[in-house]
């Protein structure tokens, strides 16, 4: 039994997998709704509240991370790889925080009511300006593509470590308990 944790704490792993499912769903809904006539309204009605939920969760997750003990990187990772891994994590955190804020901001600038569920809606965070809306709407698309690329890079890197290097990187974040050895 070692004193060094080999896995992220349960709270961090739970938030990671919950948000992974939510973010992938949101990317899928986002790309589908802009191309759909029949399902547009239904999908937008899901997209708005889930986006705000992600904004809340990413803040909780970031704070939780600051107060948690993180497992070490596998010995196979060079300091350069560790830097890249850390930087990409920070990029993902940033994107997950900024993307819902841009969504909220663009709806505010367009002067749409920001309906979450039923009568529950958010206050606008920006003044009514269609030029601002247009810029933020574009940013929302660009950020979504960036988020998707960051996800693919993250996913690809984990697959590479797990299937080629087989260095137990995945077990650090595995959604189940992995016995230390």
């Amino acid at each position, binding site marked *: 039994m070692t004193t060094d944790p080999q896995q992220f704490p349960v709270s961090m792993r739970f938030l990671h997998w919950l948000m992974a499912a939510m973010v992938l769903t949101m*990317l*899928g809904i986002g*790309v*589908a*709704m*802009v*191309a*759909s*006539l*029949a*399902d*547009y*309204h*239904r999908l*937008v009605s899901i997209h708005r509240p889930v986006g705000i939920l992600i904004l809340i969760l990413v803040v909780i997750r970031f704070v939780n991370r600051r107060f948690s003990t993180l497992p070490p990187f596998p010995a196979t990772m060079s300091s350069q790889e560790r830097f890249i891994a850390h930087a990409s994590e920070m990029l993902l955190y940033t994107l997950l925080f900024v993307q819902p804020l841009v969504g909220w901001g663009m709806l505010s600038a*367009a*002067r*749409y*009511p920001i309906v979450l569920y*039923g*009568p529950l*809606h958010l*206050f606008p965070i920006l003044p*009514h*300006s*269609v*030029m601002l*809306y*247009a*810029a933020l*709407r*574009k940013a929302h698309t660009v950020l979504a593509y960036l988020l*998707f690329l960051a996800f*693919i890079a993250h*996913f*690809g890197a984990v*697959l*590479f470590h797990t*299937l*080629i290097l*087989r260095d*137990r990187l995945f077990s650090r974040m595995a959604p189940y308990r992995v016995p230390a*050895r």
Partner: protein
Amino acid sequence: MPSDATPSTENQPAPLSVSSTLARLAGIGVVILWVVGGFLYLGGWFNPHELTPARFVNGFEKVYGIHSGFRRNHAKGVCVRGFFDSNGQGTRLSKAALFRTGRVPVIGRFSLGGGNPYVGDTPDAIRGLGLLFRLRDGEEWRTAMINRPVFPFNTPQAFYDNLIASQPDPNTHKPDPEKMAAFVASHPEFVRAAKIIQSHQVSSGFDNSTFNGLNAFRFINAADVSTPVRWSMVPVDAFKPEDTAQSANPDKNYLFDDFIARIHSAPVQWRLILTVGQPGDPTDDATIPWPEDREHVDAGTLTLDEVESEAPGNCRDINFDPLVLPVGIAPSDDPLLSARSAVYSQSFTRRAGEKKEPSAITPSDVRK
């Protein structure tokens, strides 16, 4: 595994052979391609002929051209303001705060159908009225109505196909009769709706036009009973038929100018009439009128008392999305509703970022 394995190498997996490494790399590639492909599929990349909001708006741009900063349809318009006085009668059908007795502010826009913002007014041009009711607690009700008794299309595809078929030929400046005939032949609902539309006499102006919501909605009351409803704004001003002298008027904005003169003389009013559907009344087909004997509920009075040219921050910068609804009003199964919301949003997004050209109805036109 070597027989003399030490604890330090115990955790190290056996090295992969070259072929095994390549096979695993290929597997990773396949998984990633599958994920990317899934997203492209959701985004409609593999259905290039399916009608999307972007392709729908491209259709308007193809037929009418791109007029920088203007709506892709109902491009010509003027802004109005006023209020709605609810008489409480609507609460029987809907728990929406709008229907409780009291007054809420309203922003509106009168428009003409089509994507040309400088088109000359004509008697048969479609007249539109977009309204935004600002409820007390931050909720909104938005609606976009027209002066037609029924809608000529019951699917977004039919609307689009008609739009494309009606594109004027560059030589004759008229729609290709063959394309129109082909559309008509395959759309009996369009023919039936056109007959109903033609049987209705056009009024002399915006002020005495009835504006109909056409699509059915579900009204939900405090007991959670859902009722199909269609609504209309019925003018208080007496009906007067459009007179041929009006369209002979050299003023190409005669409908707008007449309305501006009318609103300056006194506020203009409409009654919000809710038509209560019965089981069996079609809620998914805006080309079919409901029977004449359906109950009508007068829910209150719309008063418009201010008019202004389209300008930053006023009705120009509002998307009259018909699915911005308060609690108590919900979409029906009409396929036009989600499509309208999607296409209006696409049009709004495109024009929002463009340079704004001045409106046909200028600030000096709206002065007293």
